[in-house]
């Protein structure tokens, strides 16, 4: 099910989505994005490089925004833009809660700007905006006998 573009209002909030930051999640997403930087899978090397542990890579952070906004908007939605600033790291054992608000709507372009934040116990892991588009759905004519 996809959201009804016309029913969306500026100021609407998206349901919070808490994501458990496990080692598996950090490593699986890093490898799925083909990012083999050791700070995303090797705790010993991550510490040597000045981090307290392995941490989520930015491709995964972008992916989490993508997932969050399309889970809300539904499969009809297309993602036009994801603009994020990275704050504190997503370390294993933490929970990142995704939060979102409707910032603006463009009736002509059928786009929605969403403010998105991913917050963990240390602060904001990511904060920024995502723009999604909900193309007009084609109404199939009713079949009459």
């Amino acid at each position, binding site marked *: 099910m996809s959201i009804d573009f016309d029913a969306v209002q500026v100021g609407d909030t998206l349901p919070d989505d808490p994501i458990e930051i496990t080692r598996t999640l950090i490593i699986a997403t890093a490898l799925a994005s083909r990012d083999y930087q050791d700070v995303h899978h090797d705790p010993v090397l991550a510490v040597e490089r*000045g981090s307290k542990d392995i941490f989520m890579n930015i491709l995964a952070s972008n992916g989490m925004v993508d*997932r969050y906004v399309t889970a809300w908007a539904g499969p009809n939605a297309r993602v*036009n833009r994801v603009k994020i600033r990275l704050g504190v790291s997503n370390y294993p054992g933490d929970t990142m809660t995704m939060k979102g608000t409707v910032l603006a709507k463009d009736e002509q372009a059928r786009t929605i700007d969403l403010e998105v934040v991913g917050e963990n116990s240390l602060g904001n892991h990511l904060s920024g905006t995502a723009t999604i588009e909900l193309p007009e759905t084609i109404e199939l004519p009713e079949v009459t006998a």
Partner: protein
Amino acid sequence: MSTDTSYEERLQAFVGREVIARRKGQDAVNQAMIRHWVEAMLDDNPIYTDAEAARATGRNGVVAPVTMTQAWTMRGLKAHLAGTGGGAMSELLALLDEGGYTSVVATDSDFEFHRELEIGDEVDADEVVAAISEEKATGLGIGRFVTTVRTYRDQHDRVVAVQNWRTLRFKPGTGRSAKPAEEEKPRALRPRPAINLDNQFWFDAAKEHRLVIQRCADCGQLRHPPGPACPHCQSFDWDTLEASGEGTVYSYIVAHHPPHPAFEYPLLIAVVELAEGTRLTTNLVGVEPADVTIGMPVRLEWLDADPDLTLPVFRPVTEQEQ
């Protein structure tokens, strides 16, 4: 700060250069890699794995998540283990290593997507350096921000996506704390002033780092805090005078309790008498509570507390300055 001019010049020579030449991804867009991605991301959107569900949304078939665009152009583990990929990016990274900036963390990503990739699409990418900052002290360590622009194109030469990407290259172990993330946690915002039509001009001027004093346009009496009418002659006409910023401590207290998360304690709260004669409640900076005295000369400084709030604070004037 680095004073090595030749190093700075060599670094800045990279700005505007293509550091990664247009390079095709190893594999065309395929279901296996998409599945790997959506399973790792815990993403249940059916358009990535179910052609029928994707067609029901007006698509031609399965599409790849747009945020996966970069993944198609990654060079793979073998090349990663073999070291840097050669070319200008390797030169830039070697130069950053030479400067001691051996650690890296991504700070900003602005990704614009022009189209969704379908199974069989071939993606390539190039990368151009947009900016390299001067050396900065950050929570993680001393480093430089490197901004690049990556352009992703498909087999028909259409731009698929454009990504502005900023990373911090820093010297490990030079951060403010062994736990950089906690250090980076922003302090709570100071309480908001109650701004109304009568006092807005004062806070607006503060944002421009001007300390103004309200002056009666009829009798010339100065007054603070701002108000609509002159307490001296009851006139509603007024203008402002810009304060010199010189003053003396008229009175002060040292606040210990209750703590507010925006402030550091002990907190020095003072009434400062300006050279022009009016007094204002403010904070004292650059002085220990034990060293404050009544009548102490102080000078205006500006505190840009957060993007929406600028406030005047006062620092004792040293004997030398007097």
